[in-house]
């Protein structure tokens, strides 16, 4: 049986379930008496088991089975939540994540049996129950929502043969009559799938596939499309035209696993609801063989009510799309924008094209391409929740390991970022959180001594800020001791003592981002202070963002990460320096200023301007870009004021060309690119212009 097409769904759903288990167990740890949480955990564990079983991942199934047993006992109040149990449960979840990782990689769960964890789980169960009752036996009888069998039996077979009540259109009636005349059989079928079945659509699909060679399905309710999309409850009905005998079809259907019951009988188009003489075949053998699924016996009443409630699809309709396809689409949009820019510049150059209509059409095209770009971008946006939701668990583990009390407060998880950024941002964030937990926060004793709340607080706050997304990781710990950082840097030979004297606090803190810099007095296995911050920085810069640190001694440290919303297409200001064109990303520009040369002052031999009370250093782009010095200075300087965090700088340019939407392209391999360039773009006339990363000049 080929289940590969369901593998992706399985992986996604397993991830969701594991995440929700992690979240809920954390809640349970805080509030062990919360019945809702325990129920939620039980449901998630149960679904996991069912899914793993369906997909044939036996080891995973076994582990979740034992996990489920433990939760079942907790739910029934036969066991209370202790820190030991929580620890074991987390171990178990980690092992399950291990299985999932294997499955994701090779579609196989691997060979790790995790005997130890299973053993621990069973110890927990046995410790609570000395009488030696097998835990498996228990789960089957301890289902509170499990209605007695009689309730089911009370519902007559008649009601279960739902096909009898199906509306039949005229053409369908005719088809049936014709088939009967030709000596074929018409069967009405209603199939019930077990309520525990996770991949209903897969089961239904197998039923249809089994019938296909035997006959023709002329009608199904719900429609085949709805069944494929899983928009049905636990039963579906259909009419089949077939030459084969009834028993054969029934056998094929009931051979599909997780099918609870099959009702099949010969059907004549004139048949009314009153005709009950026909033999109804009840298929129970399958149901019997599936006793290990304890939840299967939901009453029909419940089924009916849920059936009505579930008529309309609850979730938004969505399609899973391969990220590569989106990349292709994005590339096409980029090409389109380049072509549009070409048209715009052609219309500016050639006089004969200057008719109003032509310009109108170009403006129209411009609007469409911009909207198209935005829509494609939006499709690629993912809330950062998918990255940060594993952090509460991590902080909990760290708290135990470091023996410090701490809590993580996250806000703005719904902030969206481009998928490519999301994939890369997890590790740097994790690193910063670990740093905050390990080195930012003082030990609980120290905190009490200085009169801070005993429980340390780590905050993760994300928000959108114009074309950027800002993520702040802060702690209310001791802050960075600048003198210690300097001393360590001197000791390592990174800086000299004279340099240390001259350094501002900010510059000293930036030392933390230098490769292999650590001020850790005691390097733990979680992180040495500063170790890896260089990796964090380079990773974030690789994504076109930057990272900044604010620290107040005694009050705490904040890491501020700024990331661009999109990677591929940006708004930029096109400028001219001598005869070359350059692009400056708009998001780093504050203002444009016209400064008389006489206003330029020298401070410590560096050119600065005083702009409305702020002293801003000037950067002569022509010098930095290795141009020949100009023979005479113009009277006025055109200065682009750019910012990085709260620092500003003024870039001196020769000419403004204007604002333009540009597509960032890599500069190709082999060639060395100074870090002041973040890429290049193709202009409307086909020329290439380099993009100046203003952040590196501030």
């Amino acid at each position: 049986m080929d289940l590969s097409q369901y593998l992706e769904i399985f992986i996604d759903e397993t991830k969701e379930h594991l995440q929700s288990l992690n979240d809920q167990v954390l809640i349970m740890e805080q509030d062990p008496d919360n019945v809702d949480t325990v129920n939620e955990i039980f449901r998630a564990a149960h679904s996991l088991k069912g899914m793993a079983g369906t997909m044939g991942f036996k080891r995973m199934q076994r582990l979740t089975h034992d996990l489920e047993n433990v939760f079942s006992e907790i739910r029934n109040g036969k066991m209370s939540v202790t820190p030991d149990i929580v620890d074991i449960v987390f171990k178990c979840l980690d092992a399950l994540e291990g299985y999932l990782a294997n499955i994701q990689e090779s579609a196989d769960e691997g060979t790790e049996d995790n005997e130890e964890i299973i053993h621990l789980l069973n110890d927990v169960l046995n410790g609570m129950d000395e009488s030696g009752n097998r835990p498996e036996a228990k789960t089957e009888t301890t289902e509170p929502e499990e209605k007695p069998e009689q309730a089911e039996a009370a519902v007559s077979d008649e009601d279960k043969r739902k096909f009898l009540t199906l509306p039949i259109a005229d053409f369908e009636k005719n088809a049936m009559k014709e088939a009967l005349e030709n000596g074929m059989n018409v069967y009405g079928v209603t199939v019930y799938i077990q309520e525990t079945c996770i991949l209903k659509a897969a089961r239904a699909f197998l039923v249809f596939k089994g019938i296909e060679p035997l006959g023709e399905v002329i009608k199904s309710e719900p429609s085949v499309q709805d069944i494929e999309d899983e928009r049905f409850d636990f039963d579906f009905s259909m009419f089949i035209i077939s030459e084969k005998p009834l028993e054969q079809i029934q056998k094929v259907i009931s051979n599909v696993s997780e099918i609870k019951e099959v009702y099949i009988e010969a059907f004549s188009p004139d048949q009314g609801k009153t005709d009950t003489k026909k033999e109804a075949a009840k298929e129970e053998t399958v149901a019997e063989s599936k006793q290990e699924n304890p939840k299967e016996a939901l009453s029909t009443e419940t089924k009916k009510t849920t059936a009505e409630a579930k008529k309309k699809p609850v979730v938004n309709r969505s399609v899973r799309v391969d990220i590569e396809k989106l990349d292709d689409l994005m590339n096409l949009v980029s090409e389109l924008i380049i072509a549009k820019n070409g048209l715009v510049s052609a219309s500016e150059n050639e006089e004969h094209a200057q008719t109003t209509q032509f310009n109108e059409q170009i403006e129209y095209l411009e609007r469409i391409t911009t909207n198209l770009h935005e829509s494609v971008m939006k499709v690629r946006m993912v809330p950062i929740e998918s990255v940060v939701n594993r952090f509460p668990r991590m902080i909990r583990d760290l708290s135990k390991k470091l023996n410090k009390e701490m809590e993580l407060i996250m806000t703005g998880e719904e902030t969206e970022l481009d998928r490519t950024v999301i994939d890369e941002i997890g590790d740097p964030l994790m690193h910063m959180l670990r740093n905050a937990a390990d080195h930012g926060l003082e030990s609980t004793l120290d905190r009490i001594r200085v009169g801070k709340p005993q429980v340390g607080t780590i905050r993760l706050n994300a928000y959108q800020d114009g074309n950027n997304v800002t993520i702040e990781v802060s702690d209310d710990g001791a802050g960075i001791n600048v003198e210690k950082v300097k001393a360590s840097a001197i000791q390592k030979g990174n800086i000299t003592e004279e340099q240390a004297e001259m350094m501002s606090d900010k510059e000293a803190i930036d030392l933390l981002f230098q490769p292999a810099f650590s001020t850790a007095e005691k390097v733990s296995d979680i992180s040495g202070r500063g170790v890896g911050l260089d990796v964090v920085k380079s990773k974030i810069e690789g994504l076109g963002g930057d990272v900044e640190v604010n620290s107040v001694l005694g009050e705490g440290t904040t890491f501020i990460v700024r990331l661009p919303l999109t990677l591929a297409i940006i708004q930029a200001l096109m400028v001219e320096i001598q005869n070359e064109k350059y692009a400056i990303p708009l998001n780093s520009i504050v203002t444009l200023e016209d400064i008389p040369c006489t206003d330029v002052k020298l401070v410590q031999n560096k050119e600065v301007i005083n702009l409305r009370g702020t002293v801003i250093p000037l950067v002569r782009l022509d010098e930095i870009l290795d141009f020949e010095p100009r023979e005479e200075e113009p009277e006025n300087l055109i200065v682009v004021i750019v910012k990085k965090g709260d620092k500003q700088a003024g870039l001196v340019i020769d000419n403004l060309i204007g604002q333009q939407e540009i597509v960032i392209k890599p500069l190709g391999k082999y060639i060395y690119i100074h870090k002041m360039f973040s890429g290049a773009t193709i202009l409307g006339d086909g020329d290439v212009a380099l993009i100046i990363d203003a952040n590196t000049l501030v």
Partner: protein
Amino acid sequence: MAEVEHIDEIKQYIVAKLGNEQYGIDIAYVDNIVRMQKITRVPKTQPYFLGVINLRGEIIPVMSMRRKLDLEDKEVSNATRIIIIKPEQNALLGLLVDEVREVVTLTEEDVEKVTYENGREDTNFYVTGIGKYKDTLISLINVNGIISD
């Protein structure tokens, strides 16, 4: 299998001129040959890189073969060409040459391997061998050598 070995012995080279000297580039690496076009200077890069060009929407760095081989710069003429090569890393690179002459076929006997004693620093590192074609000599360019630094 004899046929395969036979093919291995024969290689085709694009012959380019720098001044009076002829250089051969294994045709397997050559993607395209284009006329001189506007090259955008890239400040602060290696001196032998002239800059980047736009080739059908892709940005490609262009290297001056003259500078790479320590020859004097020469004015761009009508014959100047950019040979677009695709080394094994699969990213394109342009090589600016004075002129592209022809395609020649050389067998293994026509090629004399160059051995290096002075190590990598020698400009000879960029040449894998000398090919004899009719009564001229062709220096065969080591494509992976010129991109490796």
